[in-house]
């Protein structure tokens, strides 16, 4: 079973999926990422799927789960690099990935994280 490496850049964790993952590797990634978010206190997770040729219900669920887990751990998840054909297929499959933020590429993903950070609500009443 392949394991996807998790890179740390400042307070952002970056994962780039480069191979066709079997379900067990997808689950392992989900667990590894949650652990690393806690261990590092990261404020953001970026999952780069530029090289991913299909997102089926299993990987889609993993992306949504990672986003939900990190949010509970006070981190934002951004999925970057989704191919147009993958996006079209996901919608037709019926997966909207509602709770998952996306950006076109890694650079825009990092910019989005910074933007979210700056918007963090301080007392506004």
């Amino acid at each position: 079973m392949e394991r996807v490496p998790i890179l740390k850049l400042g307070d952002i964790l970056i994962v780039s999926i480069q191979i066709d993952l079997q379900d067990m590797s997808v689950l392992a990634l989900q667990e590894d990422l949650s652990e690393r978010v806690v261990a590092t206190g990261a404020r953001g997770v970026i999952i780069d799927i530029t090289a991913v040729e299909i997102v089926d219900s299993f990987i889609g669920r993993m992306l949504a789960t990672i986003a939900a887990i990190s949010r509970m751990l006070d981190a934002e998840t951004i999925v970057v690099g989704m191919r147009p054909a993958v996006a079209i297929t996901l919608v037709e499959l019926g997966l909207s990935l509602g709770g998952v933020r996306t950006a076109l590429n890694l650079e825009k993903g990092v910019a989005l994280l910074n933007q979210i950070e700056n918007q963090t609500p301080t007392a506004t009443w």
Partner: protein
Amino acid sequence: MTTAEELPINVNGDVVLVRQRVRTVAVNVGLSLVDQTKVVTAASELARNALVYAGGGQVRVEVVHNGVRQGLRMTFSDNGPGIPDIEQALTDGWTTGNGLGLGLSGSRRLVDEFALESTPGEGTLITVTKWAR
């Protein structure tokens, strides 16, 4: 010319092999990039279902012809518990596992032809076809 091959679906890694093989055939048949992506996604869903719910099975992948049109046909078969209520199984969101209940209904939307036969206690046979445009 006909090409057909039978691929086993017995372990997790077989689902990956099915995806990769279907991609290659989809390219050869001349499916567009979007249609390749759709048919590979459907293959992934149906192969995983065979593995998870039937404990394994196989898929026959073949190139089919309709006049000058070429298509890719996949026939998934297993000897698992079968699906008692097919209509229900094909409903978005219906699952007996812990999935999203999108595999069957979503796959049906991703292909041009979809046929599901199942006999409780005997198994399930799903045939899907995607035609090149």
